[in-house]
């Protein structure tokens, strides 16, 4: 029986994608692992590989088609021994408007239902929690908190005792913001009382429209509306890519839901510049300032683990790994490839990895796992001569470190005004996770490390 190929969900946030290119034509033989098509998601262009063997029987979605919903059939794969006549048996696609020829009675045995071929991506690393320690007797750390006090999986049921539910209702407390400490994460009276006392929990706001990404059409930010707001100034149009939409959505989400605050510090990078020159001259090892910054940021996170954390409604999650997401500018948008375990990698490794990730990012060839997750972000605009800037946190990260240019400035050293190379660094912190003092300690630690670059060479 022909196998339906469905639009794959190539990232957890992907709801639709663009069929950028068909790599196979109708009638082509396909082996498992062959690239059939290239799909543009909200994040990147990714290759869609075949899972089954057969012949590409019919393409249901033309090249270049946009906004194809996840799980919508995009093609039909014929199994060995089947010919085109079997297509009649294939489930009709909503896109396939043309009526199929009446089925010839093909001698095809009814077979097992076609497996869904879309690869299901695993959850991004940043959201995964260690499996609960099995069984009794284990010296186990507390179980991973359930979101919303026991929001089981995709269900929206909240496990809460009747009394706790009533207390929350009376106090207009949003139970999603309460951590359940009862059996199996059930929210109990104590939890609601603690949440109310702490005041940290979210009160239920008056019903308001849920946030929707700016969409085409007649919304307040429709093309026509914005055109009118701008006084009908002439314009050229750049179509919204998936990435653009994602950037828009994520940044609005971050700036409207994450309480940012900013801390700025100047770092003396004269020693770093010296070391860098020495390494280039004497060891032919070319490292960018950014490579040093990544390593220093990672080491500082190890020292101040509270900065390597994310907010969840149930608990602060202190990440066990230091995975640094580094913003890379693309022609139209940006992406944040990740240097995993940057604290344990040597500078040349970080440098080589960053080069490779950057190249592939610009080519749209990053794998999902290479740009999703991370525990902390860095954005460096130093190369543009920016002295200092405040970056927008990339949720669920707790912090983003914005790096300005290393520039020569008059500085006071030993009571003398001298010329020094100074790099301005601004840390944006999610105040729900990282308090002022923690952020300040982190920046101080970062400064200490970056100003003593020999530490980075160990």
């Amino acid at each position, binding site marked *: 029986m022909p196998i339906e190929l469905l639009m794959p969900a190539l990232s957890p946030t992907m709801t639709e994608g663009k069929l950028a290119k068909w790599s196979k034509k109708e009638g082509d033989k396909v082996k498992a692992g062959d690239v059939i098509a290239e799909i543009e998601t909200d994040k990147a262009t990714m290759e869609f590989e075949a899972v089954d063997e057969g012949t590409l029987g019919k393409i249901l979605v033309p090249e270049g088609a946009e906004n194809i919903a996840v799980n919508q059939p995009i093609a039909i794969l014929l199994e060995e021994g089947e010919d085109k006549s079997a297509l009649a048996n294939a489930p009709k696609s909503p896109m396939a408007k043309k009526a199929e020829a009446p089925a010839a009675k093909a001698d095809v045995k009814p077979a097992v239902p076609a497996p869904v071929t879309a690869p299901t991506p695993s959850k991004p690393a940043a959201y995964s929690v260690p499996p609960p*320690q099995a069984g*009794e*007797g284990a010296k186990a750390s507390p179980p991973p908190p359930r979101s919303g006090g026991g929001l089981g999986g995709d269900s929206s049921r909240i496990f809460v005792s*009747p*009394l706790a539910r009533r207390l929350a209702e009376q106090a207009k407390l949003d139970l999603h913001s309460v951590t359940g400490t009862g059996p199996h994460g059930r929210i109990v009276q104590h939890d609601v009382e603690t949440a109310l006392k702490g005041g940290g929990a979210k009160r239920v706001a008056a019903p308001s429209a849920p946030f929707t990404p700016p969409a085409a059409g007649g919304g307040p930010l429709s093309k026509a509306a914005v055109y009118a707001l701008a006084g009908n100034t002439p314009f050229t149009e750049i179509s919204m890519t998936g990435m653009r939409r994602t950037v828009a959505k994520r940044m609005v989400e971050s700036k409207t839901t994450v309480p940012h605050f900013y801390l700025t510090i100047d770092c003396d990078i004269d020693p770093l510049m010296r070391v860098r020159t020495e390494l280039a001259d004497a060891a032919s090892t070319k490292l960018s300032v950014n490579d040093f910054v990544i390593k220093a940021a990672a080491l500082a996170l190890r020292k101040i683990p509270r900065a390597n954390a994310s907010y969840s409604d149930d608990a602060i999650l202190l990440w066990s790994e230091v995975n640094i997401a580094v913003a890379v500018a693309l022609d139209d948008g940006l992406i944040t490839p990740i240097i995993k375990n940057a604290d344990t990698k040597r500078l040349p490794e970080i440098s080589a990895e960053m080069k490779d990730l950057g190249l592939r990012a610009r080519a749209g060839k990053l794998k999902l796992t290479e740009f999703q997750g991370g525990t902390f972000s860095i954005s460096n605009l130093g190369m543009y001569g920016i002295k200092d800037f405040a970056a927008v946190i990339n949720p669920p990260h707790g912090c983003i470190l914005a790096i300005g240019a290393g520039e020569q400035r008059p500085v006071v050293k030993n009571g003398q005004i001298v010329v020094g190379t100074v790099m301005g660094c601004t840390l944006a912190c999610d105040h729900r996770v990282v308090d002022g003092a923690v952020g300040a300690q982190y920046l101080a630690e970062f400064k200490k490390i970056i100003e003593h670059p020999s530490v980075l060479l160990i």
Partner: protein
Amino acid sequence: MADTPNTFDTIVLGGGPGGYVAAIRAAQLGMKTAVIEREHLGGICLNWGCIPTKALLRTSEVLHLMQNAAAFGLSAKEISFDAKKVVERSRKVAKQLSDGVGFLMRKHKITVIDGQGAITGPRKLGVTKNGKAVGEYQAKNVILATGARARSLPGLEPDGKLVWTYKEAMVPDAIPKSLLVIGSGAIGIEFASFYRDMGAAVTVVEVLDRILPIEDDEVSAFAQKQFEKQGMTIHVGTNVKALKKGKDNVTATLEKGGKSSEITVDRVILAVGIVGNVENIGLEKTKAKVERTHVVVDEWLQTGEPGLYAIGDLVGSPWLAHKAMHEGVICVEHIAGLNTAHPLEPKNVPGCTYCRPQVASIGLTEKAAKTAGHEVKVGRFPFIGNGKAIALGEPEGFVKTVFDAKTGELLGAHMIGAEVTELIQGFAIAKTLETTEQELMRTVFPHPTLSEMMHESVLAAYTGALHI
């Protein structure tokens, strides 16, 4: 720590209900476990407390029913009893259960060390038997569960012959003709009830202004009325100033409101509370703190000394076996680092007194709830409105429920009457699950049962009882 026969993961000092349960839980969790017991497994509860008294009280209950056989259309003549056989039955029941604990220890491969144990150093215990050292033991964790004993008052010291504690009261040679019970807590009242039903003239003296002083006011008042109806004499707000021992009787000087009076009885039972067994267990060698004869512990039953825990009567009230058992489980699960370990919620510990009529309660009394600042909604339902109670011939008693008017939290439940000690767990579950009046009102109670009164009491607090 090398694994030798004398090293354990957990050693429990004391084999009472708290201790042996802690040991079983420890063994279940894979710990190499030992229990040190100086007398007999099961402790006071099984040997000299909960269990043998229940056996005695069953006897007095059956006797009471036989004496009232006519009310059930039965005839019973020449009703009599043999005190020796009554005690024998009680001892047999106690022995059966104590032996049962021995079996449980073997089943869970728990080493039982016979002797008196005491801490000799950090995570170290020495055991003596008849004054001779019999062993040195080491454990990663030590749980003290040495229990408590009857409190005595100056001038009122028990002698075991004329002035009894619970221990002598449990094994009388004969039922005394007259008896003075000093103290009207659960222990005093249970003995008073037993001896009264067995025919003794019983006088109860309570220093506070009501009997069963930890119970709800209405329960205390109802109980007093019932006991007095049964022929008991009750003096509240009364002190016993002196006990003058005769040859086979005791003359007690009572004082109430500045006025003295004398009463002469065959025997006296002293039931004025208990004190923790904190002596001779080596506590002075540890950082554990003792306050008013009880070891101070945190919510996980940890003392100030690393690796040293204390549970049960030793750490304070309520002095209840089921509380001790739970503490045993909690501290062991805490030691094991179980995610599911949870500290005990005192407001959810029920208490039962097995007098006739029985008393059972949980949570706050109406007065305590008001004192704590709750605006309350109170419901009551009497036994007389319950079909099963009438059929049983037990129309005396009531169920009272106390709710927080604002949140519907079940703050407390108070019951007096037949079998209420078996009913209270329904409210215990309700409280543990944090139900409000709504869930209780929606709960279906089977008909005809005494439990329907629990439902009716809740209805009475809100929408109105249906059957009264």
